[in-house]
């Protein structure tokens, strides 16, 4: 089936089999391998991407369901190659990643939180990432990173 969508600001058109998941489409057809696949059945959150403004699990969507949608992946959150978004920079600053497997999903979940709330409480942050598993960090530095990014974004604005 023919699908047309916008991924990280670029229009793409592809023929896909209906059973192709959105995450496999992004990774295998578009070579956007920044989005990770952990469990492939909606448990870990590693595959989170933003679809039409909201974070979703891309293993729980078929690519055909994203026809016409606007998708942002981890590759689309910075201002181009070699630059870091405020969140990516804060993750680096506070050591919020070890193996990095969960990181793209964590950042996507946090991007969607900060887009709606630029002054989140610790509770808000924990709720935003409650669907994302990390087997390394113990989460504390991830929460710190998101709070730091929010602060930096607010300061940059004022």
């Amino acid at each position, binding site marked *: 089936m023919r699908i047309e969508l916008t991924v990280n600001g670029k229009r793409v058109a592809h023929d896909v089999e209906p059973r192709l*998941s959105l995450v496999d489409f992004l990774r295998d057809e578009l070579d956007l391998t920044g989005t990770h696949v952990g469990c492939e059945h909606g448990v870990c959150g590693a595959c989170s991407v933003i679809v039409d403004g909201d974070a979703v*699990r891309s293993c729980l969507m078929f690519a055909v369901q994203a026809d016409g949608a606007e998708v942002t992946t981890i590759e689309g959150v910075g201002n181009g190659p070699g630059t870091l978004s405020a969140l990516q920079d804060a993750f680096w600053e506070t050591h919020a990643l070890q193996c990095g497997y969960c990181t793209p999903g964590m950042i996507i979940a946090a991007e969607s939180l900060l887009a709606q709330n630029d002054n989140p409480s610790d509770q808000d942050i924990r*709720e935003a990432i409650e669907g994302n598993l990390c087997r390394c960090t113990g989460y504390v530095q991830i929460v710190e990173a998101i709070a730091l990014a929010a602060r930096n974004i607010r300061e940059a604005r004022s």
Partner: protein
Amino acid sequence: MKSAPFEYVRPQNLHDVCQLLSDSAIDSRVIAGGQTLVPLMAMRLARPERLVDITHVDELADIVETEDTIRIGACVRQRSAERSPVIHQHLPLLSKALPNVGHQQTRNRGTIGGSICNADPTAEIVLTAVTLGATLNLQSINGPRSVCVTDFLVDAMETSIADNECLVSIDFPKTRTKNSGCGFVEVNARASDYAIVAAAVSLTLDERHEKCTHISACIGGASSVPVMTAETQNSLLGSELTDQEIEAAVSHAARQLTPMDDVHASGMYRKRVAAELLARAIREARDDCRSDRHAH
């Protein structure tokens, strides 16, 4: 974990949906948010031959307010319901329950209707629908049919929806009055997981906010479908809902339950925790109502 091949169709109106579902030669499944169906397909526990995606049918996407109900279209996402001022105002119990449903990524896709059709015994939305006495409006090629949620739910993961029927909308009776309150409490293993046991309560007090004039108190996760605790409700009607009265009343509820054991908890644990959660939900609803007194 990849789904088996299937055919995908995306009808634009309800008539076409019903037409597609009426073809019994092919095993069709309706997909809306897909947050339960897609993992089942990935694990090959479901292998429909055809998916009928109903999310492009405009008439299924609305939240409509009538004089005494809020009608939620079959494709309304859990996240949209969570953010809806109309639901916040008229269905405060649903507003309280929704943040407990999955997490942001699944609520952004999952629908209210999909959760009810999936009929998981621990699902918060199913529990809320039973507590509030929701009605489901279904449509097939033979015409419309409306069914009360308690008749719709047959058993765990089983409903009375026919293969050729599509859910169109769910009617929730409006509950917010100046004398009403609600409570929702659950225990789970992790914040975003399904509840192990959950309790939901919607009640009304008299004008002076002293005596209980109506109460709907329901437990999910301790039986195959959520149960109304009739004895508890009867013993609290007309009472002042003191902590002691509530404590005594919830012991009836525990006797009514014969919960199952599973990997998450034993039946015995569920029974004990159900009574305690029900007491907390009733107190929360009572305090919610009394604290509202000056707000209106």
